[in-house]
């Protein structure tokens, strides 16, 4: 039987009262609103632009690190308190790569420098993803469905992992200086933007695009989105969703590794507590965005990035609180996060 494409129903033009997907744009408006609201407080436009870009960059990086966590939770109801381990792995591996490729890093050629960054990024993802596979098998799988034990066991796994990181990389902090040609900033209009941050943002955008494309345009993405809503039904349709989960867990860990690598480059230094540092931020982002929602995670991360940078400039002492305050404010508006995942 020939399979002709079923055209988008011809009636679509006739009954154009039927909207396609009604996308809730209010959170986007919120992001823009906050950015604009900060402008008068910051005063100078160039500073505002710098802060905004820095905020968006930070948000992008946090999103990458958090996306795996929210997918894993949404899909398989597993809260991995050990997620920070993969972030730390990515960051530390980046230091090793940068050190090992010192020649290319200190060369004044952008090409060589980007090559170093690329290797670091790929290595971070590969290592974190592989360890993620092992983590799922050994630590997480035995406690499916038992939330309390999951929390305890993944924390335990994180402790062990971070101590092992200290064994391999030593307990001291390691600087992660940008490669030669990527040092310093460039001027975009009146704002000075650090080159390395720009690279991080670009990488982040590529990842975001790939993630969104996979989720929305492939069947696997379809399975994941459906599985987040109703795991049982997906199984009833004949899909072995547990296998999919292992893949998602590994991918999430790889993304965390990437996020860690970018975070390290953003901060230009890697400390052993990097995992813990970012962990709290991740949880705040997840809660703001809505557990299980990728889009929510994105906007939650952008909001946190922007607010942290604005408040960090305007009232440095309140910076940490700004995230919590934001979280509380959002929860008051939408108790289940910006884009709650409707389960069944």
């Amino acid at each position, binding site marked *: 039987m020939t399979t002709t494409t079923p055209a988008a129903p011809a009636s679509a033009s006739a009954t154009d009262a039927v909207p396609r997907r009604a996308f809730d744009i209010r959170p986007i408006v919120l992001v823009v609103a906050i950015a604009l609201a900060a402008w008068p407080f910051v005063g100078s436009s160039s500073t505002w632009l710098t802060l905004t870009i820095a905020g968006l960059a930070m948000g992008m990086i946090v999103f990458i690190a958090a996306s795996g966590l929210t997918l894993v939770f949404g899909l398989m109801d597993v809260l991995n308190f050990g997620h920070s381990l993969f972030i730390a792995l990515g960051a530390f591996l980046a230091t090793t790569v940068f050190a090992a490729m010192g020649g290319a890093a200190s060369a004044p050629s952008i090409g060589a420098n980007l090559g170093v960054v690329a290797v670091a990024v790929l290595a971070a993802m590969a290592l974190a993803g592989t360890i993620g596979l092992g983590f799922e098998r050994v630590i997480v799988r035995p406690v499916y469905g038992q939330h*309390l034990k999951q929390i305890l066991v993944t924390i335990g796994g994180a*402790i062990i992992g971070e101590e092992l990181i200290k064994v391999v990389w030593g307990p001291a902090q390691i600087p992660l200086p940008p490669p030669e040609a990527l040092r310093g900033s460039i001027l975009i209009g009146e704002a000075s933007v650090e080159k390395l941050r720009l690279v991080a943002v670009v990488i982040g955008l590529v990842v975001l695009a790939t993630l969104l494309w996979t989720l929305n345009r492939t069947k696997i993405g379809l399975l994941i989105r459906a599985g987040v809503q109703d795991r049982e039904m997906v199984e009833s349709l004949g899909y072995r969703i547990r296998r999919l989960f292992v893949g998602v867990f590994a991918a999430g860990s790889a993304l965390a590794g990437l996020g860690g690598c970018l975070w390290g480059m953003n901060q230009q230094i890697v400390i052993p507590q990097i995992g813990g540092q970012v962990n709290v931020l991740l949880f705040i982002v997840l809660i703001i965005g809505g557990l299980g929602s990728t889009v929510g995670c994105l906007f939650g991360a952008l909001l946190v990035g922007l607010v942290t940078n604005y408040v960090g400039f305007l009232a440095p002492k309140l910076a940490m*609180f700004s995230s919590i305050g934001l979280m509380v404010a959002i929860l008051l508006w939408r108790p289940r996060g910006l884009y709650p995942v409707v389960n069944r």
Partner: protein
Amino acid sequence: MLARLVSHDLPKSRWLAIALVAIVAALALTPFIFPGTKALNVAAKVIVFIVLAASFDLLLGYTGIVSFAHTMFFGIGAYGVAIAATRIGATWPALALGAICALAVSLVLSLVIGLFSLRVRAIFFAMITLAVASAFATLASQLSDFTGGEDGLTFKVPEALQPGTEYAAEPFLGASIDGRLVTYYLIFVVAVVLVLALLRIVNSPFGRVLQAIRENDFRAEAIGYRTVVYRTLASVASALFATVAGVLLALWLRYNGPDTTLSFEIMLDVLLIVVIGGMGTIYGAVVGSVLLVLAQNYLQDLMKLAAAAVQNVPVVSQIVSPDRWLLWLGILFVLSVYYFPAGVVGRLRSIGKRAPSR
């Protein structure tokens, strides 16, 4: 009579009973049996952690709530005393005021957290408490005018408790009778009272409802118990006990800083104690605290020896290095969760059960 004292929550195991008696006796007689300041410090830390962990067990083991804000209340208690002693002076009324203010703050905070978050899923609650505790720790280290910032506050205690105050010219049975000794026994007695109180709480009808909620909150609600109320009460009680533990610690150390009470490491320690010791038993907190604090202080010496022995083996020497003792604790922790879900206490009790059938 002894049974009534522990609210009929008997050890139910010969080994456990022996262990508990030994622990209590050792702690009571530490100044006389184990000479030296280090031993006394370790013992005091054990006592404080017993109260801290037992109050956490009320929340985790009996009510089934995971909260990372426990150390926050610990810190509030310690800071209450520290700030009062620093600002007002080293007098008993000042201490009392500090302690009462700390308890009040803890009461309000735990109520707010409880009512706000206990309506949401457990995962949400755990994450929110983590964020709040983290923010609090940052706050404490940033309000340096008030809290002494990163350096913390060093303060004097009332004269009766000061180490310099001598009550007897000659040491008695190896221990000098000074303010330090008095402080130690003050802490000891208060801790004993608090633990007995916790036993009373968990063995009361209230405690039984908590356990019912932990097992199946839906059913508990259906039977007619308003689970939010019970959970909030448990949360508040747990917070208050932790606050008192903080007060005790501050009295002993005569110092408090963000790392002393608010750090995540301490939260992990408490978690480890309760899980390894045995959740939902209170005695687990006792046994676990002894194990953890002793390990923290003396195991590291052992590891130093072992590290010296394998000094030249590249990776192994790192793994056995005393700085990495948390690695081993972490492994023990994970193994406990999988294979010894009932903890040390559970294990001891099951040994006890098998014995009579021989």
